[in-house]
């Protein structure tokens, strides 16, 4: 894959994290933590597993850590782990329904949030935040999936 394509993918992930940064200070009062950055990354791996491998996940994670995280290595770790799991079960995911997919991806993002709180901010760990975030992210995933698919088809029609 060309570098310019990686740049486009990275830009969408950064846009997702930027959205999280902008919206989370407002939504956290409603016990909701959005995870657009992580979900967009997961979408790209799910949509193009043959193009994006461990090195890409590691690089995207490093950039996300440098710009948005409080600890270098956190996004790298989760991106690599998520990438591995998606690669492992990619054929099963292809026959999953939207409901099953949103359940899996929302669950992954909730696990990401839980680990973020446990590692970086244990005082603020809250089950309520996790449960509400899981439900809302599951709904948002469907919309995100459709938008990202339309975007991918318009941009990467040759891939």
């Amino acid at each position, binding site marked *: 894959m060309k570098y310019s394509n990686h740049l486009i993918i990275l830009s969408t992930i950064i846009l997702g994290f930027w959205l999280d940064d902008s919206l989370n200070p407002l939504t956290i009062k409603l016990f909701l933590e959005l995870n657009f950055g992580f979900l967009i990354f997961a979408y790209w791996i799910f949509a193009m597993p*043959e193009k994006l491998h*461990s090195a890409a996940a590691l690089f995207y994670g490093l950039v996300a850590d440098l710009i948005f995280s409080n*600890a270098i290595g956190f996004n790298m770790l989760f991106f690599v782990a998520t990438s*591995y799991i998606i690669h492992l079960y990619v054929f099963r995911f292809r026959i999953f329904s939207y409901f099953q997919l949103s359940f899996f991806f929302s669950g992954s993002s909730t696990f990401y949030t839980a680990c973020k709180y446990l590692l970086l*901010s244990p005082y*603020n760990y809250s089950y309520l935040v996790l449960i509400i975030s899981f439900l809302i992210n599951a709904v948002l995933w469907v919309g995100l999936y459709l938008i990202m698919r339309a975007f991918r088809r318009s941009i990467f029609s040759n891939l």
Partner: protein
Amino acid sequence: MARSTPTNTPIRNYAIGFFLSSLLLFSDISYGTFNPLRGFVNASTLYVHIISKDIFANIITTFSSFQKNRSLLQENKELNEKILQIRAKDFINRKDNEEKFEIIDFYKSDLSLLKNNNVDIFKIASIDLRNYFCCSTHRIFLQNNNNVSADKNVPVFAGESFVGQTKAKYLNFIEVILFSDTSHVLPIKSNFFYCDARGKGKPMLISCKLNKNNQDFKNQIGDAVYTSGLGGVFLKDIEIGFISSIASFSVNEIEVLITLKANPLEETFYGIMNEETDEI
């Protein structure tokens, strides 16, 4: 795309990535290895943000240059900022004068003990809202356009109370750790107790853990809390907040929750006492 078989990345590559990122994460969380790098990135991002904001503001100003009251608005803005600066400076001068009178009364002489307070006023550049509302790390960045030398761990005040301490300096920005940050400890006192209050990781909240069997503890919700001056960093007897909750924490301990007086979200100017300042 769907017809092509995904290539199998060897597990070895994932394992290397996993261990590498775990190592980086561990070293950063445990030893803060990448703090300077993160600070530099934050400062650079702030620069870009400020520059883009300036460009945007210039465009708006150009378009509105035909308005007659433009100069008046500008003057009004400058005067407002001046008032806020004077208010911030006035607070520390007043407290300093009180301290001076107390000491003069006490010692009756030896005015040479006192030096002049030298306060630098900085405008806020950014507050880390991402973490402020949800997480443990509560930091703000102050614009240091004149490149004033600001030492580490110097008290920072805003409005009529202290808000935190300087942590580091990146490019032309000073990073300030707020009291509500979980890694910050502040020696405080009330009428009935002294303690080291730790940030709660929630906006404007710090807490103290006290022995349940402490018979002297007679505080009630709403009682004022002051800096104790222990440790020699903060001036003593500055009101920093009030007790907002008293709850049982464990079998032998109670947790006293203190709501801070100064709200960083409402303050524009912050004062830092430089090295010539008295430590009373």
